[in-house]
């Protein structure tokens, strides 16, 4: 067990270093952005005096290294400063958005992960049957669709074409939730974005599940189980699945990361107030603290989920602890 902890500690350390380098890259890039917040904020009315005052107020007149140092010092205490545009605490602004993003990701994951595992196991069980072929074509197709295509088709199908005489659609095509929205209303409003995301990610996970299981079916121990006369479904679920877990967990982690990180397009199409949308807007307004903090959250999500996948892989296959 010691080795597991050492490996985890190593990976964690590497993750922290990665995050540090990412923050440095982002800070450096924001530094080279043409124009700064004060110019963008005042726009046409910018006079030299007001811009200079604004810069001083926001510490933009210090050198890059000093500002980056201050940011790192605050960031390790989880203080990400305040947003330049509306003077609110970044942690507060992002907190609400992050909650929304996580809710959506959780909603989509709750549908897509069990669904894809179920479909994948079925496809492995009835491999090369018409069901398998159908699922194969279907998943290849849904992998290929751009997110906005899926989103617009769903909007057209489930929202706009269902507007009845009273003018309300089956599902709203804009998921404008706020903090006070009760849970069920929220779930109803978020059905379309969640369904879009589900359709986008389910194919990848399902194909991986099927491939990982089928890969194992040639192993001698499966042959042995078959010779013992165990039923086909039992072989797949009890004997093959536990050993196929590592690649499946890996691809699930990758897709969960995508659900949190890569949903900008879906958020824009369905006007969902998530983290991606605020980031796009913050880049536009040169709101550096906001950009920094949200990119850090994204990078941290990615690193953490990868770490989890690695740990599961190692735990499920102890041979990996002793690299040759």
């Amino acid at each position, binding site marked *: 067990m010691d080795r597991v902890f050492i490996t985890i500690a190593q990976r964690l350390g590497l993750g922290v270093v*990665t*995050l540090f*380098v*990412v923050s440095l*890259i*982002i800070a450096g*890039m*924001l530094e*080279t*952005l*043409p124009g700064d917040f004060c110019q963008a904020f005042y726009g046409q009315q910018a006079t030299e005096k007001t811009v200079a005052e604004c810069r001083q107020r926001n510490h933009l007149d210090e050198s890059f290294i000093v500002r980056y140092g201050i940011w790192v010092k605050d960031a390790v205490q989880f203080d990400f400063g305040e947003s330049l545009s509306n003077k609110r605490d970044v942690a507060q602004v992002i907190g609400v958005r992050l909650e929304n993003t996580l809710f959506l990701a959780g909603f989509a994951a709750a549908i897509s992960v069990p669904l894809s595992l179920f479909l994948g196991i079925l496809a492995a069980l009835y491999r*090369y049957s018409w069901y398998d072929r159908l699922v*194969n*074509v279907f998943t*290849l*197709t849904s*992998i*290929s*669709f*751009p*997110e*906005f*295509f899926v989103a*617009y*088709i769903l*909007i*057209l199908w489930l929202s*706009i*074409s269902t*507007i009845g005489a009273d003018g309300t659609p089956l599902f709203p095509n804009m998921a404008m939730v706020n903090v006070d929205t009760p849970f069920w209303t929220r779930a109803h409003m978020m059905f379309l974005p969640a369904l879009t995301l589900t359709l986008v990610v389910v194919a990848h996970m399902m194909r991986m599940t099927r491939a990982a299981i089928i890969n194992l079916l040639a192993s001698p121990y499966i042959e042995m189980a078959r010779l013992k006369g165990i039923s086909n479904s039992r072989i797949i679920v009890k004997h093959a699945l536990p050993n196929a877990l590592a690649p499946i967990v890996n691809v699930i982690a990758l897709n969960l990361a995508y659900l949190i*990180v*890569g949903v*900008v*397009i879906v958020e*824009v*199409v369905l006007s969902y107030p998530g983290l*991606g949308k605020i*980031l*796009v807007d913050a*880049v*536009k307004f040169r709101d550096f603290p906001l*950009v920094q903090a949200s*990119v850090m959250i*994204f*990078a941290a999500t*990615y*690193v953490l989920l990868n770490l989890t996948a690695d740990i599961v892989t190692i735990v499920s296959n102890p041979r990996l602890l002793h690299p040759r």
Partner: protein
Amino acid sequence: MSATDIIPPPELAKPASMACRLGSALTVLIPLAVFAISFSADSASAIAGMVASVVFGGLLYRFWGRLSLPPIREQAIVFCILVYGAFVAVYLEGFSLYPWSTFSGLVSVVVLSMMVAVTWKETRKAPITAKFGLIIIALNILMVCIAPILAPHEQSQVLGGAYMVWGTPFADGGTAWFGTDELGRDYLSRMIYAIRNTVGIAIVTTALTFIVGAFVGLLAASLRGWVDQSLSRMVDVLMAIPPLIFALLILTVVGTGVIKLILVIALLDSTRVFRLSRSVAMNIVVMDYVEAAKLRGEKLMYVIWREVLPNAAAPLIAEFGLRFCFVFLFISSLSFLGLGLQPPTADLGSMVRDSANLINFYQYNKLMAITPLLPAFAIALLTIAVNFVVDWFLHKTSGLKE
């Protein structure tokens, strides 16, 4: 891959058959005729195109014998050329305006038919999905080549009112088959040009991604040591930043433009190719034949180019297809967010965004409401096609049989 594929049978250059000579003659004659007619319109490009077509025809004639195609396939190629020639003859008016497009269309027809002819044995046995994919890809390539001829109007030409309904005639001739966009430009023409622009950029970007990523990946695997370590860590860091957001940041910093777009996406995407080519090459560089080549005193470049690359080709080719899909979707997403090609150049993602509001008018005009879905569908169709072909290719090279 069977033994006969690896060791080609000794082949004598056989004398060119009748069909072959006919084909070569036609490849030169068709564009020649078009250039002769278009000479009055635009003499400089007509002359350049004529020179190019003569060079192309000559090369074709010179190397045709090397392809060692059985007679029936040569005739198939000639047939394709004849069909193309017939199209040129029937729509001579359109083709004579764009000699360069005529020429590149011819090249694409010849190259595609040759590729099909050379791989005919496998192609015939391909599943229906892969055949469908191949046809869609071929149509897209042809569309990229001869877009100006196919499109009834220019991409930035304002012809009528904004958001005209499907099938309305324009004031000065022609019909808006798919209506007009928000500035009154013909939607169909813009879509054809958009396919040309987006697909063209995606192909260039993917090629660049591959050249950079695969080369650096193979280099890292062959050199090992600190080069490998530092490159890998760098890639790890780059991959920890979500690509769409990273691209958004970089493009905001450097500004938008075709060249910048290509370079940024190629840089971000080559990290993925690096990962794959490195891990594939890692298993190859420890093989005995690579060791032997090194002991022979071969240079590093020779080892990479002649020993490692050919053995890593199959997974890399499959990855090329998947990368193309990814880059294509990525460019569309970026332009959907307004950071892709800048107007008035048409591209698929921004066309979806600009006409997205039409979707709300479903109750009033159903055809108008699905207009924004058309460019999105064009994206989806090509991506599906490439995915189907890659799936088939992977199935074939991995040796998985039922």
